[in-house]
């Protein structure tokens, strides 16, 4: 009898051993995928070679031959430069758009839960309208209804003599560096470090004595002190540069951007904010009701309740779906091609249209978006881990 139990525990022959079969199946599937990919890659290369289309990346060093909206790019610069410029322009949309859409989306998400009938319904109307329109339409609408309706540059609006608003260029006042500007930036850096030190000191004092910390006031105050004193002590290291229209054709001074950039930014921010609003609303509602009730029992004001009790918990829930919206925003910037903003998709297709090989360029384009998406995920996942509840 003992021998029988022993044979029962002996492993079956390998062709019936689940462990082995699993590994083999993985290897076979993986191998097939690799073979298929290599076959397709070679097929492409053979056919491109047969059709006399270059298969290497040498074209990247060729002059681009075109100039680019809103930059001083020269036609003699190589294609690799114009691709980098496109990446920079896409980044310029993402870096400004993501904070804006987060703020707008949060406000609207909170408004959807407001006890005020009008605010609540207005927010619902906003979300339900924009969420159900394709982003391309929002972009074209914004461009036509908002940007193109702005005055032509020769009749540009110049509110307070500080801004220039036209359908071609828009400009805001900007700081111009003078001598000492480097020193001043260093002073600001020291001020920043000092304000953090003050913040920590006030927090420690609060922890020790329980006296009100007012750490935000103290911290900002320290920084402002450094900024103001440093500014005058160094003899005005920055001066204000006001934008001015020259000849009714261009703008000089200030910080300027082109109409299509503003159109795409505006359109995608209001579009993506409608999705973010839903995420924020859902996350707030997902916070246990007892938390709100507890906050009410502590006689917190409704702002305090949101700021200190509900929102911190809601954002924990919201972060994973928010990442998705940030990624969507970044990918949707490719639609800017419709209204002529030179982001990465536009410059790549432009290069393809100018007799450069499509497969390589599309590969570069895909790689660029992958880079964008992975960096955003990485950043937010890091934040997510920091904010997650410690559950042990």
């Amino acid at each position, binding site marked *: 009898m003992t021998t029988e139990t022993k044979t029962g525990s002996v492993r079956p022959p390998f062709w019936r051993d689940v462990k082995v079969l699993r590994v083999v199946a993985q290897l076979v599937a993986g191998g097939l995928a690799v073979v298929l990919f290599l076959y397709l890659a070679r097929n492409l290369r053979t056919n491109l070679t047969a059709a006399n289309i270059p298969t290497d990346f040498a074209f990247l060093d060729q002059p681009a031959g075109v100039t680019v909206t809103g930059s001083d790019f020269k036609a003699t610069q190589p294609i690799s430069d114009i691709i980098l410029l496109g990446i920079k322009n896409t980044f310029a949309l993402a870096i400004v758009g993501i904070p804006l859409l987060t703020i707008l989306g949060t406000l609207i998400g909170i408004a959807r839960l407001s006890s005020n009938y009008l605010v609540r319904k207005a927010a619902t109307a906003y979300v339900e309208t924009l969420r159900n329109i394709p982003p391309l339409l929002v972009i074209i609408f914004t461009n036509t209804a908002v940007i193109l309706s702005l005055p032509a540059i020769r009749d540009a609006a110049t509110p307070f003599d500080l801004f220039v608003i036209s359908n071609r260029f828009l400009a805001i006042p900007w700081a111009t560096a003078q001598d000492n500007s480097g020193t001043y930036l260093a002073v600001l850096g020291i001020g920043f470090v000092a304000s953090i030190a003050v913040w920590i000191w006030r927090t420690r004092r609060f922890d020790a004595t329980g006296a009100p910390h007012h750490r935000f006031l103290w911290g900002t105050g320290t920084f402002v002190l450094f900024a103001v004193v440093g500014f005058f002590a160094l003899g005005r290291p920055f001066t204000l540069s006001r934008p001015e229209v020259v000849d009714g054709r261009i703008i000089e001074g200030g910080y300027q951007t082109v109409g299509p950039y503003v159109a795409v930014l505006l359109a995608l921010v209001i579009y993506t904010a409608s999705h973010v609003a839903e995420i924020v609303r859902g996350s707030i509602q997902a916070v246990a009701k007892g938390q709100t009730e507890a906050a009410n029992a502590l006689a917190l004001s409704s702002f305090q309740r949101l700021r200190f009790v509900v929102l911190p918990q809601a954002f924990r829930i919201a972060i994973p779906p928010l990442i998705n919206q940030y990624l969507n925003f970044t990918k949707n910037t490719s639609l800017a091609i419709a209204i002529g903003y030179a982001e990465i998709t536009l410059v790549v*297709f432009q290069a*393809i249209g100018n007799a450069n090989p499509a497969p390589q360029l599309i590969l570069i384009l895909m790689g660029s978006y992958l880079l964008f998406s992975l960096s955003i995920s990485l950043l937010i996942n890091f934040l997510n881990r920091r904010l997650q509840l410690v559950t042990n």
Partner: protein
Amino acid sequence: MIKRLLLLVVVLAMVAAACGGDGAEETTTTTAAEDTGGQVAGDGVLAEVQSRGVLNCGVNNEVFGFGYVDADGNFAGLDIDYCRAVAAAVLGDAEAVEYKALTAQQRFTALQAGEIDVLIRNTTWTASRDGKEGGTFLTTTFYDGQGMMVKTDSGIGSIEDMANTTVCVQSGTTTELNLASRFAAGGLPYTPLTFDSNDELRPAFVADQCDGWTSDKSQLAAFRSQNPDADGGPEAWTILAETFSKEPLGPMVRDGDTQWAQVVDWVVFATIQAEEFGLDSTNVANYSGDNPEILRFLGKEVGDPPTVFDPGLGLPTDFAEQVISQVGNYAEIYNRNVGPDTALGLERGVNELWTRGGLLYPPPYR
């Protein structure tokens, strides 16, 4: 255990073999890939089109006079008529065409991928396109040049007045490249505003987002002629006199199929030759003369003993008659779509027969 290892080795060997083969130097594997590729057609596009019974023609759908959709929803224009001419020659039916509307950026990829048989989409013949786009340009059907259109009330009289202006241009076109060269040569700083299509460019020009609109002069004339009265009508827009590039527009086919290239070439030549012979769609069917050159051209019996001339292009011997009776000769095609009596009102200019001092010069059909 040994068997298990063996299996692993087999799988690894498979992967290794695939990796090793990547060099594409071994002729055996390369031919296999070619056979399945589809791009390097063994039987040729001509046979393919004939067996399919319909011609896939890549065209424009937004340039009035060249390639556009008319009020009845049909494709029309000079380029469209050449699609029809090729179909009439190859299939005997000018209507057997499947039009594929393409943007400037899509066009070469569509041709390379075999989505279309021929690209007739006001495409400029350039060396790098011939060399790097995997296609071959054929006989020019329209000699064009690049111009600049401005608002009449802008006060701009020439390119030299355009320092610091913003110029609207379609991306992925030769005009975009010429624009950069022309303004660089004049030392004129400018801002380009590039659009994917003319439909998106037009509103920007109307709203004064750009001071100038640059494109082939024929295209500018087309859009100018179609400017609605609400926007001031055609008079509100002015095309500057200067022509700053050569833009020969013509059909393009994929590289590597000489027979098909010759077919399309000779269809274009036939329309020009017909005008030279004085043949048009009204008189070609009942040609009763005895000019042997014309009889040979029309695929009628000629000589003693009477024979039908077949140049061996792979086309039916009466292809010229089909093209002319169904589509017309060059003058008819030109005048119908872009000529002086149309909204575009373009004079023949260099697009005239060589006998009248133009550039149209078909090789002899013999």
